[in-house]
């Protein structure tokens, strides 16, 4: 599967034949035959397509049959194929999913949002009501705080940290809705509750409601995908994905947190020897990952572009450093503008590989001066039992045979 995907991604790239040859050596006879079947003969393809009319216009376009990016689903989540994407916006159908009671099937005509508690006017809003409020759009990432798999050397970027995606969200500022219902100024927390079988609930500080929280109903300009909260969800830019409650059915204002299961027994971080736990750790710290070259690529000596994503829940990324020698020396990568706050940014760095064993890695810095830590630094700060918010520097090793493998050794202990 992985090799299938990467073959499509590579289609049309220079030196394709050479790379397939390398892969044939690795994959054996069966792989070689498959690769040969899709390898074009020079000139033949353009003749084939220019002498026969192609398909006409249709209702909904689909990816080329040669392009098959796929999320990687488990029982409770599916992960974005970071290695197959080249921009910063995640196609809606490839946005990661994480849910606790499955994806509900909600009729938008029946959808209602109740806002009550410490408000002057407890109110029920229809989807049309929410869409009639002044709208705003925002590009930001959404990341699950459980977004790290340490894995084996044969681990895809998707598996390392595919629980992050980016979207242009459209909806109404939560502060606009709270003004409509007359929020009590003494309210300090609100409960967000979903309409799924988990009836997901999180307590959110009102400060976030007044800052940049939104109720969104559009994903990349289209309706939300069901797995991302159709018809409406909470969006808390820069905060752990679980708090952006999907299928939002209820908001209740209060003057204390509700201490739901998700914010006590889950989504809390044991510290030190484990006798204490950090609670309400919402913000996602700065992070980056190289998405290419990465496993399962096999590269040739010569010029390459190291490419990846960086993001911070605290604001803008100000720099990404790249090392090709396992962290001994670092160079500044180029950031692709516009660099938006609380958003994925693309970084790129030209690199000439001479054929010797190498280890490539990236390190993000955000506008607060926070520098993405090593695994050792993170463990020293939090202890061995921390579960969420793990954002260590990760690496890819390149063998003298050109094979790129995940630097799993860096995340041992």
């Amino acid at each position, binding site marked *: 599967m992985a090799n299938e995907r990467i073959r499509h991604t590579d289609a049309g790239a220079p030196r394709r034949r050479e790379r397939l040859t390398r892969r044939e050596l690795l994959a054996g006879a069966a792989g070689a035959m498959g690769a040969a079947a899709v390898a074009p003969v020079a000139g033949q393809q353009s003749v084939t397509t220019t002498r026969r009319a192609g398909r006409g216009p249709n209702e909904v376009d689909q990816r080329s049959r040669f392009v098959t990016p796929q999320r990687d689903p488990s029982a409770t989540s599916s992960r974005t194929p970071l290695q197959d994407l080249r921009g910063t916006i995640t196609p809606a159908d490839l946005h990661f999913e994480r849910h606790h009671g499955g994806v509900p099937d909600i009729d938008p005509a029946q959808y209602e949002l109740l806002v009550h508690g410490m408000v002057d006017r407890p109110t029920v809003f229809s989807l049309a009501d929410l869409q009639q409020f002044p709208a705003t759009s925002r590009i930001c990432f959404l990341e699950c705080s459980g977004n790290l798999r340490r894995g084996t050397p044969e681990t895809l970027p998707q598996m390392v940290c595919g629980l992050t995606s980016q979207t242009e969200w459209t909806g109404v500022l939560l502060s*606009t809705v709270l003004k409509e219902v007359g929020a009590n100024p003494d309210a300090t927390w609100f409960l967000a509750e979903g309409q799924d079988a988990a009836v997901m609930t999180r307590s959110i500080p009102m400060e976030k409601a007044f800052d940049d929280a939104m109720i969104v109903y559009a994903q990349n300009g289209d309706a939300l995908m069901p797995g991302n909260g159709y018809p409406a969800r909470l969006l808390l830019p820069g905060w752990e994905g679980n708090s952006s409650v999907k299928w939002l059915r209820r908001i209740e204002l209060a003057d*204390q947190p509700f*201490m739901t299961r998700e914010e*006590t027994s889950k989504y809390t971080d044991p510290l030190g020897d484990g006798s*204490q736990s950090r609670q309400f750790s919402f913000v996602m710290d700065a992070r980056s990952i190289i998405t290419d070259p990465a496993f399962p690529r096999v590269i040739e000596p010569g010029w390459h572009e190291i490419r990846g994503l960086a993001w911070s829940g605290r604001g803008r990324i100000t720099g990404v450093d790249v090392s090709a020698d396992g962290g001994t020396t670092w160079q500044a990568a180029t950031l692709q503008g516009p660099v938006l706050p609380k958003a994925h940014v693309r970084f790129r760095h030209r690199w000439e590989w001479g054929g010797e064993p190498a280890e490539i890695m990236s390190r993000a810095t955000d506008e607060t001066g926070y520098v993405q*830590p090593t695994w050792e630094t993170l463990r020293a700060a939090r202890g061995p039992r921390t579960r969420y918010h793990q954002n260590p520097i990760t690496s890819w090793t390149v063998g003298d045979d050109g094979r790129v493998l995940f630097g799993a050794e860096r995340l041992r202990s």
Partner: protein
Amino acid sequence: MVGWVGVVGIIGGLWVAAPAAAGQQPSPPSDHPDSFGLGRPATTSEIEALDIDVMPDGTGLPEGSGTAADGARTWTRTCRGCHGPDGEGGTAAPVVGRDPSSNRSTVGNYWPYATTLYDYINRAMPRNAPGSLTAPQVYGLVAWILAKNDIITTEAVMDARTLPAVVMPARDRFVRDDRRGGPEVR
């Protein structure tokens, strides 16, 4: 479920001071009218139908009661298939265990509030039929789990008055998030 007056005290004190939003008004763009005239007033009955949350002070707990013996019957029928006959060793997360140094977080070593047990079981359990349990059944399951963890006696009756008074072993384990950005890794 908000319906009490100023019962913040010990429970809320730590957190109320934290994000310090009290007194802050929503601040949408200043050119917005006072009201867009959207939405309709919520009726008391529809609020009651949806307002199922239970807070640490017990606000939101319904009438009814249950003991560990009551809960044992419900456990056998609806819970043990996933959570195991004694609340551990099943395919689902263990709910029994008091060892604070264990890597497996349970109700006994990790949950700070007994009220959360009622809230969560009532809203999301059992996985194949969430929301199907009656209030006495939920109280019984809460009592069974707490008794299995040696937090209450097997005779103790759990209801809207007694459950919020249960002090959990992990009550004081939680600390505020002290990450603030900047160069220090926390």
